[in-house]
């Protein structure tokens, strides 16, 4: 059992997400930084989809009522176990009564806090991921708060099972995109602007979508695109011209033209961009 002694401003339980219900309007949810989650589960000896805590904005503290192995990763944060500084992606044994404290997040957006065995909350529609808009999954469909108690699960990787290991690459370089379904509505000027601008993720961004600052681009189509299915990483251009990127809890359909879609291999790195960081998109043909 884990007790949330000081809840972070924004923390939810997430796993790799909920598929199979997009036709009922249910987004996939799941950790925004999938690469880090896979790495953490792999090094903790967990099944690759074991659930963990996803923290944003600032720190908090946990008490481990039973001993366990804990690891952190994703955003760069000042983390301590029983007062001793933790390194990212290095599992630490914590005895019963031990404390994990996160003082602050210094780089990136989402800190993942994972334990050996995973967090055991009920599986709802095939996933433990929290979807706040529908109060679904996670712990009672909501953010963690002070005094919450979390069960540690038994989502251990089978010893004979998959031995895929994940290497966590340091964030660097451009974000790869492929042409979106409405790429043809954007002329050469719009594309040049899109691919040559230093963009940043606005503070007014969350798990449903990231607003990008730095450019405004127009398209040549009429504004009456019938709403169509969208996906995580889809870069939409609304009438105002400032791009919005659909994230894990975003709408399943939308009517804004999609100029491009972020490569799956670049989504985790994109999700971790802090508001101050600049980024460029690169088109993979």
């Amino acid at each position, binding site marked *: 059992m884990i007790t949330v002694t000081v809840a972070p401003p924004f923390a939810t339980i997430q796993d790799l997400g909920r598929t199979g*219900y997009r036709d*009922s*309007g249910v987004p996939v949810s799941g950790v925004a930084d999938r690469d880090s989650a896979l790495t953490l589960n792999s090094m903790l000896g967990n099944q690759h989809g074991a659930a963990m805590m996803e923290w944003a904005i600032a720190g908090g503290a946990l008490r481990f009522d039973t001993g366990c192995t804990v690891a952190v990763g994703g955003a760069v944060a000042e983390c301590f176990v029983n007062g001793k500084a933790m390194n990212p992606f290095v599992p630490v044994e914590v005895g019963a009564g031990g404390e994990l404290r996160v003082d602050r997040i210094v780089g990136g957006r989402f800190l993942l806090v994972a334990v050996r065995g995973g967090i055991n909350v009920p599986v709802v529609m095939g996933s433990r991921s929290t979807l706040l808009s529908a109060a679904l999954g996670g712990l009672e469909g909501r953010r963690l708060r002070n005094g919450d108690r979390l069960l540690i699960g038994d989502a251990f990787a089978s010893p004979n099972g998959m031995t895929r290991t994940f290497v966590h690459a340091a964030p660097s370089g451009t974000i790869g995109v492929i042409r979106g379904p409405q790429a043809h509505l954007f002329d050469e000027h719009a594309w040049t602007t899109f691919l040559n601008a230093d963009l940043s993720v606005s503070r007014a961004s969350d798990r449903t979508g990231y607003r990008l600052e730095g450019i405004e681009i127009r398209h040549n189509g009429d504004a009456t695109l019938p*709403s169509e*299915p*969208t*996906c995580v990483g889809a870069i939409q251009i609304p009438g105002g011209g400032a791009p919005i990127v659909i994230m894990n809890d975003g709408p*399943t*359909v939308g009517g804004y033209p999609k100029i491009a879609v972020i490569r*799956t291999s670049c989504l985790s790195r994109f999700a971790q961009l802090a508001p101050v960081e600049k980024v460029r998109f690169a088109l993979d043909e």
Partner: protein
Amino acid sequence: MEAFPKIDPLGDDAVLVTFADRISWDVGVVVRTVANRIRATRLKSVTDVVPAYTTLAVYFDSARVPFASIAASLAPIIELGGLEELKDQGLIEIPVIYDGPDLAEVAERTGLTIEAVIDRHVSRTYRAYASGFQPGFAYLGDLDASLALPRRSAPRVRVPPGSVAIAGAQTAIYPLQTPGGWHLIGSTSTVMFDANRNPPALIRPGDSVRFIRKAP
């Protein structure tokens, strides 16, 4: 002229199939027929099949199967088109109390009496063209043309769950508390989305819906 149906990548992990560039009920029938046929084929690594107005998306795991392979498997299924008649899906009746905060404004802007607005809203059987934007939300058409209004210029920050709303040629029920820009004309206590139900959404694309006027 573009040739339909058209198969495009929607990122690495999905295929978007476009059947037409204009919304019509007949196109929707084709979209849903093909969607059902793809579901029945149970292609390996496909997780979701999502029909919408003129398009459908097939989501898959690109780590296991490449786009080209999925596209090749889908092409013959898509080319069959919508020749089969869809079985009639259920008629869903939604009891509504017409007490929405925008009802008077809708009456004023359409030049109708409140009674006429309500009569025209309950007099039709609507069909669900698409689901989405949020869990359990279904886009229902076609609204009586005399009730068509553009969305509110300032969307509400909070629309209560169960609100019955209209915008353009469409009507819908908000399943959850959410921001929203449609005109609220009534409310229902019918639960539109329930995670413990299978499927969780009450209304799915292809369903028919009638609103039944209930006394407040």
